[in-house]
Every structure is written in structure tokens, then in C-alpha cells.
């Protein structure tokens, strides 16, 4: 079968377009492993459950003042009016607290899910939400393994609420509000490398106090928030999730797109040419 000029150009055009798309796709996942993001180490062994960080967070982010917590053991979750909560759990080592908020993954599922890059992993480390780009599709919520982005369902101009590690404070050199004011120094702010070193030090210096595990070091490909705890993290309601990054789950599919865009039209065009000769009568036939 000989290919005519027109067909040739068509295939050429499709190939070119596909290559252009393909390059973009491959170029995008930057080597996040090399950047030393900022993050926070939370130490459950130090936290006394004063809930002060919840008030600091609300104050720093213009959220309503949190209601007083009557019973620590009732598990609350973050929501559209609170970006962080501290819950208490009855564990094998007594009552232990845990603060939950966005984990600020190194390779965030939400940011890779976002079709407008409204969810954005900053170079500094925080994952931020940019309202002027967001469509409100909530795919970030579907994708986040920690269920952290929250949506204002009862607003005509809804926003996504989640911890942004006080990105605006970070830009002026300040630490996140919660980490600044913790009376028990349960929150340690620094670069990820510093956090990991500090966590290791604490475990080594006090092996009886801590469970030998740093939650967030590898979870979801590594997160900027990390947890030290006296008990197994499962006793504190933290999810046992995969160690690999979540965006990697869609990579295979996304990488197949350029090849399908090249091969399939060429293949279809080929069949079209091959079947044409015998059936000249089809009326919509182009030539």
C-alpha cells in the first residue's frame, strides 16, 4: 500500500502533535527528591493536648474561633472551618494525642490530580491552593490519600480549605503559626533533613519512650509533616498507606497517551487506505 501525500502529512502532523504533548508530560514531574522542603515534626510524646495550635491556626488563617473541646477522645476531623485538629486516643501507653492537618507530600496526589495546577507544591515545601485557578472539581479530594482538602459545600463561591503551612508567614521568614506557639515544643519546624535527623536523635536518646518509626518519612513517597509517637501509628488513627508516591500510579497511563496518539491514527489511516479500493461507493469517502 502506498501512502499518498495528504495521508503522509496527516500522519506527520499527528506525530508532531503527539511528540509535543509527550515531551510536556515527561518534563513535568520534577526531581522532588533533591529539594530539601521545609516541614514540621510533630512529637506525640510531648503534646499535652492543649489544643492551642487549633486556636493559633484559626487566628492566623481567618477561620472562626474553634469551639472548646469537651471530650478529647471523640475523634474529630478537619473541615471547611478548621484546618487542623488535635485528637486524643486511649492507647497501650495511655492517652496519646495526635495533631492532624495536610501532610504536604513531597509528590502530592492533589497537585498532580489538579487540572489547573490550583493545588501547587511550592519549592519551600507547602502545598498551597490557588483560588483564581480552581474549578472546584474536587478531584484533589478524590485523590488525596489523607482526605485533607475540604470543600465549602454550602457556599456559592466555595473554597478548598486545608493547611497551607502558613505559606504567607513562611515567605516573610516566619515559622507556621502552630509551630511558633506550642507550649510543649511538640512541633519542630525545619527542613526535612533536619526533621529526620532530629527524629532519629530523639528515638536513639530515648528508645523506651518512642516507637522506632517516623511516620511520613516514606509514606506516600515522603511527606513534609512527620510524626513521632510512643505507640504504633495505627493506634492513633493514622492510615497505613503505600510508601510509593501517588502520582506514580497514573504515570503508566499518562505515558501511554503520546504513543497511542502516534500509533492509533496511523493504524486507522492505514486500515482506511487498505479497505478503500474495494469499496469506492461509500459516499462520505474523502477522495
Amino acid at each position, binding site marked *: 500500500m502506498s501512502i499518498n501525500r495528504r495521508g503522509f502529512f*496527516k500522519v506527520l502532523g499527528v506525530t508532531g502533535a503527539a511528540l509535543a*504533548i509527550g515531551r*510536556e*508530560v515527561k518534563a*513535568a514531574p520534577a526531581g522532588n527528591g533533591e529539594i530539601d522542603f521545609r516541614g514540621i515534626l510533630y512529637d506525640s510524646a510531648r503534646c499535652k493536648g492543649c489544643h492551642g495550635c487549633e486556636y493559633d491556626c484559626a487566628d492566623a488563617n481567618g477561620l472562626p474561633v474553634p469551639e472548646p473541646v469537651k471530650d478529647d477522645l471523640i475523634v474529630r476531623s478537619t473541615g*471547611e472551618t478548621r484546618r487542623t485538629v488535635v485528637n486524643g486516643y486511649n492507647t497501650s501507653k495511655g492517652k496519646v494525642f495526635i495533631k492532624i492537618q495536610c501532610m504536604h507530600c513531597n509528590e502530592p*496526589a492533589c497537585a*498532580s*490530580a*489538579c*487540572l*489547573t495546577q490550583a493545588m501547587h507544591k511550592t519549592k519551600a515545601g507547602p502545598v498551597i491552593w490557588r483560588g*483564581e*485557578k*480552581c*474549578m*472546584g*472539581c*474536587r*478531584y484533589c*479530594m*478524590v*485523590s488525596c*490519600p489523607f*482526605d485533607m482538602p475540604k*470543600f*465549602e*459545600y*454550602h*457556599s*456559592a*463561591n*466555595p473554597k478548598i480549605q486545608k493547611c497551607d503551612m502558613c505559606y504567607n508567614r513562611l515567605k516573610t521568614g516566619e515559622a507556621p503559626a502552630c509551630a511558633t506557639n506550642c507550649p510543649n515544643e511538640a512541633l519542630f519546624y525545619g527542613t526535612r533533613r533536619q526533621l529526620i535527623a532530629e527524629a532519629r536523635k530523639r528515638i536513639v536518646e530515648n528508645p523506651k519512650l518512642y516507637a522506632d518509626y517516623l511516620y511520613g518519612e516514606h509514606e506516600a513517597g515522603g511527606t513534609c509533616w512527620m510524626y513521632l509517637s510512643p505507640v504504633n501509628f495505627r493506634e492513633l488513627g493514622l*492510615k497505613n*498507606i*503505600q510508601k510509593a508516591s*501517588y502520582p506514580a*500510579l*497514573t504515570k*503508566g*497511563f*499518562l505515558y501511554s*497517551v503520546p504513543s*497511542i*496518539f502516534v500509533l*492509533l*491514527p496511523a493504524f*486507522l*489511516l492505514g*486500515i*482506511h487506505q487498505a*479497505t*478503500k479500493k*474495494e*469499496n469506492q*461507493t*461509500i*459516499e*462520505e469517502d*474523502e477522495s
Partner: protein
Amino acid sequence: MNQTKSKIFTPFNIISVPVILVGLVLIVIRFWKGIGAVTNLTQEIPWGLWIGFDVVTGVAFAGGAYVVTFMVYILKMKQYQSIVRVTVLNGFLAYVFYAGALLLDLGRPWNVINPIIGNNFGVNSVLFLVAWHFLLYMIAQLIEFSPAIAEWLGARKIHKVLSGMTVAAVIFGITLSTLHQSGLGALYLMAKEKIHPLWYNEFIPVMFFVSSIFAGLSMVIFEGSITHRVFASQISSKDHHAQNPIVMGLSKICAGTMFAYFFLQVLVFIHEKHWGLLNTPMGYWYLLEMIGFVLLPMALFFYSYRRNNILLIRTAAILTMLGIILNRLNVTVIGFRWDATAHYIPSWMEVVVTLTVIFTEIWIFRWVINRMPVLRSSPEWAKH
């Protein structure tokens, strides 16, 4: 043409008009008070009926257009020529209305243009790919259908130009369909721990693509059995007689692809070693889907094709469609956070809005059929 307008109080009109009116009120409330005012969506389950049924299931049913255009324009299976236009019209309207339904579900719909104009291009996102493909595929389908519009308007010169673009649009359309049918499944790849393991696997995109073939063709069979009754006056006796062989042929393709699909499902099931999950409520639900709505209709398609039984084929088509609804909802709604304490059940308002979308689409479909040569044959001048 006029006899079709004679009756106003048909059962369809009597049901659809009040539903559409209520639906329009609900849509106003939704934009006024927010999505939470009409839906039961939660922070844990952010996508419900509007995405899981309207978009994900609806697009699977619209898959008939790319399969039939592939058969007719690429493989030159001329015997299916008479169903091309109605299938493409159906597909096109389905996409327009499901993309429209998507707008209702967007919290900030005024930003819907952002991924198109580059604010920003989220090229790492599966949804970015799906959004672009929806847009491009709608254009491709419009081009495929446009000769019918030109014939209606009597625009001869434009008709010639548009007809010349058909094959290019078809090739482009098939490629786009392959990618976004599977892409709708790929959307859920990152929800790894959230979807019940019987429905989550890395092959969701392949499953969605393969099942869209028989989902679309079952829709074509189902839609054909209705249009041939409702619009009988428009269909030439030649096309009317051609319909049964077409349905027979489609049932054969359905049976074949369903076999491939079932085989894939079994492979994945064995590979993932899910035997222990079978003896649970979700396991029974899974078996019902696989046996009752895949294996059974597949066998029916095979059997009724051999027996030349049109009625049984239609039954099989309806069972298949129910199976597709079940499958898509199992991935997107029922199996999604199946372990959550608060389950999501759509509100009556979500259901009414969904029905509004479907009924409005049927109204437009009827409007077009009554005017343009879709089921009718083209005017003489358009036939060369």
C-alpha cells in the same frame, strides 16, 4: 414531518416536563446556595451521582459512536451505514449534556476555561487529559454530524466541504475516545485505598475502555428499538428491514467483547488473589455484577444471535446496560469509601437533576430527528 408534532400529551411529555421544571428550580438553588444545598456529598465522598452516573456511566453509553464510525468509515462495513448518523447524534448530545452536567458539579464553574487557556495547563493530571478530550471529541462529533445539518439547511457547498472532513474527524474521534474512555477509569487510579479491592486494580483504564465498546453498542441496540417505533414514519422500508441484521451483527460484537472483558476480569481477580473477599457482602455484590450482568447477557447475546431472536438480544442489551451502570457506580460511588462510617446515598434532588439532564437531552434529540435527515434518507442532491 408534521405528523410528529400532532400529539402534545404523550406519556413522555407528561412525565418529562414537570421533572425538567423542578430540575431547573433545583439548579437555581444549587448555584445560589452551593452544591451542599441539593446534594448529599461529603468531605470524604466528594463525587457522587452527578459524576458517577451522569459523566462516567453516560460517557460509556456514548461509546457507540466511535465503535460504529470505526466499523463504517474505517472497516467499510457498509451494512451499518444507516445507523451512523443517529448514533453519532446520540453520542454528540450525550457528551454535550454530560459536560453540561459536569458544570453543575463544579464548585467554581466560572474557572472552567482555565485548563483550556493555560491558567494553568495541569499536564500531569488525568482530568486535564479527559477535559481536553471531551472538548476535542465534541468538536470531532459535530464535524461528523455536520453534513446532516447542512442538508437540513440546504447548504450544498458547505455540505461538500464538511463531508470531506468526515474521515479525518472519525480517525481523530476514535483516538480521542480510546484515550478518554480509559481515562475516565484512570481518574480513579490514585484513589488506591479508597476503592474496594474487588474493583480497584491497575487495569481500571483497560476495563473501562473494553466495556465502553459493548456498553455503547448495547445503547445503540436499545436506542434503535425505541427510535424505530417512535419515529417509524421517518424510516424508509429499506432501512427498516436492514435493522434486524444490524442488531444481529452488533450482538455478535457485544458477545465477543464481553467475553474478552470477562476474561480480563477473571485474570485480574486471580492475579490479585481476592478469593477471601468473595464470601463477604461486597463479594456477593461483585459476583452479582460479574455473573448476572456480564456473563448472563454475554451468553444471551451468543444464544440469541444463533437463534435469530431479536427480542432476546434486546433483553441482553438492557441487562448489559444495567451491568455497566452497576460497574461504573461500584467503582465511583458504591465501592468508593465502602468502609466509610457515613455512606453516601444521593438525595432526591440529585436524582431529579440527573433526570432533568437526560430528559432535556431526549427533547433535543427528538427536535433534531424531526428536522434533520438523521433517520430519514438524505435529500437527492446530497447523495452525489
